């Protein structure tokens, strides 16, 4: 970009740049730039409503009309592409443009109600603002305004006040172009045109909240925020989302120590400016049902204790357990907290028994992460997805498991990138990405990877190809080995996309047995000594390779582990009965912000802060740091790291827990540059007998961090059992099916999906009426039994 007052022949303009003169100021911009964008670069603001940089131009609102020399009629700046030498006159230098804009503004205000004082948008409203800058001081309109019943629900969460709408169609275009959920549409015609849904189908989109944010008036509001605050009373803090590994930049707005809303914030490299409804609306947990004070168990009951007492009790209990201890870290820890856990385990407890994977996992996965992921620099970025010849998804459902990856893949797909998915059926998300299904029975993904169709295999060999594996791959023996091998064979980049925001950071921070921070193998002497030096301990003081995953579970279950520190883990997230195993542990210290199954059996509960009460960093799936600051500066809660520092202190170790100190240490360590751990390939299982369960977590489900927003919960997708018609038929299944596992059964309405492989049934993992680990005792890839069950609801 170059800015000069007059175009000079001496300035060499690269061929891809064209020079446009706006209000007498010349600017060189890339060919194809829209006038409105070129004007922005010069700081010239042209009014606009329908224009949005991430949506296709429509030139519908006509607010941005400008004059172009030689063109008889004013043109919309939002749709007009610059040409070399074009002379543009905006409202600042052209009466034609100014009068045109004033006219449009007057028309827009005709039917707009004067309810700004009670409108959520009042104070941050583009219509209000632009009416002030380009509107007439008084209305000439004395006829009757158009009115509608208000508000109407377009979904349980999103409300619509139609009379405020200016028909810019940003929301409907977002629903169609970006989210791929064309369930919000312009209805009717002319002056009656209005946004709406079908009579019996709401705006069912995981991304619905974005429509509120891009609405240039107050037509769309959320049930959560409506009438709660005035924008000018809010304090805004840039944050990062704690829910998934997409890594969204957010803006958190609060008022009187209460978060009132969260917005997707602009980060072109990551979430552009979108986020998902979970990231936007699921924050009530931060305030409701918090543990405020330390608790210690006395006579079987937890009672409030002082910090010194609780720390002393915890230290004593852990010291008694010695090195027969373990640390379980939740997947939504910040990287700094995870690092603190990793260090605490190795120094204060002297154990390498540590795992951040509070979910189905495997030793194969641990080896995969050690060999291919931990401490590696960014290999695949969001932007790479748009340029790839193909993106192969393995055991990964982006719409549910990493929604911003899903949006970028949709964008990529519209840009001719092929998407293929190794799964048992073509999901709604895959259809929205125009993707191809590579059918694989649950648990047998490895076999499918070994026998990919020729065209996919070939596409993967093209430069820029990407393989994305999800957390579910850990449930499919051999899948991660096969993915790694495929990547090696074809040269396709391999990306591991965990579901939770903290997993990648925890991995790199060393919160997994066998891996010290930066991906350092604990078995590697050089790695050990690097870490020991920074940690200020003897190398010999570092423990040897410990246990993780199922081996750790078995050790706990057999009573060999006597003390456990648990931070932010929900026991029901493990496929096995973790509660029963933990019940055999002598001493449990829980770092938690809410009561849970762990606090229910803990000997000491140490309260810790939620994301608004601390600063920290998440690594998104790319490996990109997503640092965030503390929203509530005067919060009284400690981070996990700070609590661990106090606990270590009580145990006689000095492990400073300030975020800056932790970051500095991690920075000093840096990533491991020595020889990486290698992976022992796991062979694929080839058991094809019986009906298999395919399952993953829906974006909106019974996750504890979604508690407290009934409107959000009401937009969750209903529980269904998905299967092919043939599968249903062969089991005599009609509208309802019962799925039986070792622990019990789930009965759910049937959704026939003929893209599904036969003898496979899909259930949501953790939704209302379908918590498969608890209810079935089965997980992804496990054998289940199907039948028509009893009549639902007891009707006879």
């Amino acid at each position, binding site marked *: 970009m170059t800015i000069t007052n007059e175009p000079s022949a001496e300035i060499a303009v690269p061929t891809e740049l064209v020079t446009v003169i706006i209000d007498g100021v010349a600017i060189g911009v890339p060919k194809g730039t829209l006038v409105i964008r070129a004007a922005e670069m010069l700081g010239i603001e042209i009014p606009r409503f329908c224009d949005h940089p991430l949506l296709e131009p429509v030139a519908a609102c006509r607010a941005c009309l400008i004059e172009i020399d030689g063109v008889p009629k004013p043109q919309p700046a939002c749709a007009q592409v610059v040409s070399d030498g074009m002379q543009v006159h905006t409202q600042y230098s052209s009466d034609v443009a100014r009068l045109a804009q004033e006219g449009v503004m007057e028309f827009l205000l005709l039917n707009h109600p004067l309810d700004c004082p009670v409108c959520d948008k009042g104070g941050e409203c583009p219509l209000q603002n632009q009416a002030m800058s380009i509107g007439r001081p008084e209305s000439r309109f004395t006829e009757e305004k158009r009115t509608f019943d208000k508000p109407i629900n377009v979904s349980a969460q999103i409300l619509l006040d139609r009379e405020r709408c200016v028909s810019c169609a940003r929301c409907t275009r977002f629903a169609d172009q970006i989210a791929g*959920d064309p369930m919000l549409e312009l209805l009717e015609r002319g002056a009656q045109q209005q946004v709406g*849904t079908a009579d019996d189908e709401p705006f069912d989109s995981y991304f619905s909240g974005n429509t509120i944010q891009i609405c240039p008036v107050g037509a769309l509001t959320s049930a959560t925020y409506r009438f709660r605050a005035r924008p000018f009373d809010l304090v805004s803090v840039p944050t990062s989302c704690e829910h998934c590994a997409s890594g969204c930049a957010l803006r958190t707005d609060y008022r009187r120590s209460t978060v009132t809303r969260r917005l997707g914030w602009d980060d072109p490299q990551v979430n552009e400016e979108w986020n998902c409804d979970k990231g936007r609306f699921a924050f009530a947990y931060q305030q409701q049902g918090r543990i405020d004070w330390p608790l210690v168990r006395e006579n079987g009951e937890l009672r409030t204790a002082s910090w010194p007492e609780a720390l002393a009790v915890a230290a004593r209990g852990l010291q008694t357990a010695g090195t027969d201890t373990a640390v379980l870290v939740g997947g939504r820890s910040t990287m700094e907290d995870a690092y603190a856990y990793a260090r605490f385990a190795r120094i204060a407890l002297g154990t390498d028994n540590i795992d951040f994977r509070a979910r189905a996992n495997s030793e194969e996965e641990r080896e995969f992460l050690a060999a291919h992921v931990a401490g590696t620099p960014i290999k695949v970025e969001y932007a790479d997805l748009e340029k790839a010849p193909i993106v192969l998804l393995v055991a990964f459902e982006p719409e549910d498991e990493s929604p911003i990856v899903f949006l970028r893949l949709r964008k990529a797909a519209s840009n001719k990138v092929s998407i293929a998915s190794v799964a048992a059926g073509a999901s709604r998300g895959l259809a929205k990405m125009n993707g191809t299904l590579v059918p694989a029975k649950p648990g047998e993904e490895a076999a499918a990877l070994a026998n990919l169709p020729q065209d996919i295999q070939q596409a993967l060999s093209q430069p820029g190809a990407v393989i994305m594996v999800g957390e579910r791959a850990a449930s499919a023996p051999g899948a991660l080995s096969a993915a790694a091998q495929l990547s090696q064979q074809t040269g396709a980049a391999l990306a591991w996309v965990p579901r939770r925001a903290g997993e990648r950071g925890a991995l790199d921070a060393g919160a997994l047995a066998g891996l010290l921070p930066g991906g350092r193998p604990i078995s590697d002497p050089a790695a050990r000594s690097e870490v020991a030096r920074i940690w200020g301990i003897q190398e010999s003081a570092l423990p040897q390779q410990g246990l993780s995953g199922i081996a750790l579970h078995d050790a706990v279950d057999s009573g060999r582990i006597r003390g456990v520190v648990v931070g932010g883990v929900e026991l029901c997230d493990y496929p096995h009965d973790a509660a029963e195993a933990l019940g055999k542990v002598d001493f449990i210290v829980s770092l938690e912000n809410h009561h849970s199954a762990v606090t229910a059996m803990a000997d000491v509960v140490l309260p810790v802060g939620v994301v608004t009460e601390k600063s920290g960093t998440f690594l998104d799936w790319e490996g990109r740091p997503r640092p965030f600051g503390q929203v509530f500066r005067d919060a009284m809660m400690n981070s996990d790291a700070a609590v661990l520092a106090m606990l270590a202190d009580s145990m006689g170790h000095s492990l400073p827990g300030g975020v800056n100190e932790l970051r500095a240490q991690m920075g000093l360590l840096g990533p491991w540059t020595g020889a990486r751990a290698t992976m022992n390939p796991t062979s694929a299982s080839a058991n094809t007998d019986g009906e298999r369960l395919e399952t993953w977590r829906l974006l909106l489900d019974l996750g504890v961090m979604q508690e407290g927003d009934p409107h959000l919960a009401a937009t969750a997708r209903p529980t269904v059992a998905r299967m092919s018609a043939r599968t249903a038929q062969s089991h005599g299944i009609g509208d309802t099916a019962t799925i039986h596992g070792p622990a019990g059964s789930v009965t759910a309405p049937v959704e026939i999906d003929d893209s599904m492989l036969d003898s496979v049934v899909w259930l949501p993992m953790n939704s209302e009426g379908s918590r498969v680990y608890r209810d079935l005792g089965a997980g992804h890839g496990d054998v289940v039994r199907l039948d028509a069950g009893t009549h639902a609801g007891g009707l006879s």
Partner: protein
Amino acid sequence: MPISESTREQMREIAGRYPSARSALLPMLHLAQSEEDEITTDGINACAEVLDITPAEVTAVATFYTMYKRTKVGKHHIGVCTNTLCGLLGGDAVWDALTEATGAGHNTASADGEFFLERIECQAACSNAPVMTVDWEYMDDVTPSSAVEVIEKLRRGEEVHSTRGPVIRDFEATEHTLAFPDDGLADAPSVDAKMLAGLTIAKERGMTGGNAQ
């Protein structure tokens, strides 16, 4: 009432006419209307299913076009052009007479379900003003009394001929024609004296368009 499987089959047939199935949506909605006498949620859902688009996308289209009705039309749709030319040349009086004769109003049906009235826009028959339509078939050059007479004949079940078109059937039959236009009624006389006005003079006076050179 859910759209019947045979209607869905016909919808698929219509979709087969086009390189892109969605192009069939307008005729498909006419077909749905020919079965349901209005555009119902069932009709919308059937179109959505056949085309694999969302009901909202169909609703967006169904509410845009004025021929799709949101309430039961009943037996006959009666249109009266009240645009400037027809209206001023007498369409307004015809409208008044018909509302009185039927008890129906704009976009509403008479109590007995026989007649649904609509003030329609220009029907491309301005030389035949004022123009009325019965189930969208032309009734040209009407007067208030001739229009009411048409209504009365229909009410009595007598045969009524369009002035340029076939014998009047009913609204649903016309809607079916719009979905399947080759309806076997093309032989109905459709050229009137006004369409021949110029030709008649030309013939009388020996004027021709000339032949190939």
